[in-house]
């Protein structure tokens, strides 16, 4: 008998940790991983609400989020590899061609 609110608060903790990691970290790969962490936090709220309403539609939405996250990871990591070939760095501060 766990309150649903606890699951949601746990998801909020994970989501805001993901936001903090996204803003603080300077490594492209770590930033990308914090996006995955935020997606996982949102998935947890979906599952908690699906449990609350006795419906599986929320779980199916989580399934689609997982598929999109997998596709996004493949394309994003390919972009990171292409970026590393061009700039020889993973630091986000040194990728500033558009800014200069």
């Amino acid at each position, binding site marked *: *008998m*766990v*309150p*649903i*609110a*606890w*699951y*949601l*608060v*746990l998801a*909020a903790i*994970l*989501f*805001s*940790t993901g*936001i*903090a*990691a996204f*803003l*603080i*970290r*300077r490594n492209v*790969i*770590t930033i*990308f*991983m*914090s996006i*995955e*962490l935020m997606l*996982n936090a949102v*998935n*947890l709220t979906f*599952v908690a609400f*699906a*449990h*609350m309403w006795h419906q*599986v*539609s929320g*779980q*199916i939405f*989580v*399934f*689609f989020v*997982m*598929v*999109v996250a*997998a*596709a996004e*990871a*493949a*394309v994003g*990591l390919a972009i*990171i*590899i*292409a970026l*590393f*070939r061009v700039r020889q760095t*993973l*630091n986000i*501060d040194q990728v500033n061609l558009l800014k200069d």
Partner: protein
Amino acid sequence: MQIALFIIFGLLAVAGALNLLFQRHPINSALSLIVVMMSLAVLYFSLGAEFLAAAQVIVYSGAVMVLFVFVIMLLNAGEEEETRGSRMAYIAGIPGAAAVFCLLTFLFLKEREALGTTHLRDALSGTVSNITEVSHQLFTSFLLPFEVTSVLILVAILGAVVLARKES
């Protein structure tokens, strides 16, 4: 039993997330993210979503994180160094994340009564198993999105190959 599962694996997930935040080396962040994903799989199981628990372990911890670890090792990513931008990010990032956390937690705890509690016994004693119900919905009501997803995966594969290919 369920409350013990929630506390143990919830704390494990929070510890993993904080470790991801404070580690300087990307491989340590990747390994702690795997801890978060495995404990989230247990929490899905405790919410009666067995199919998603299995998919979480196979797709996220199994496929996506292996891809991340491969890329970290392929690019030989080292520790990140302190720059002027990172100090500014600390000033802006911590309060921003804390504000989002406070807003969400306030909202959830205010609506605590309306949200209710979990009831695993109902979820497990049903005549239809979770995976039967999910697949029935997936192949009747959500058939078109499911098929469109396969096209999305195909495009993602092609895009990854094109982007990662060496230019000759």
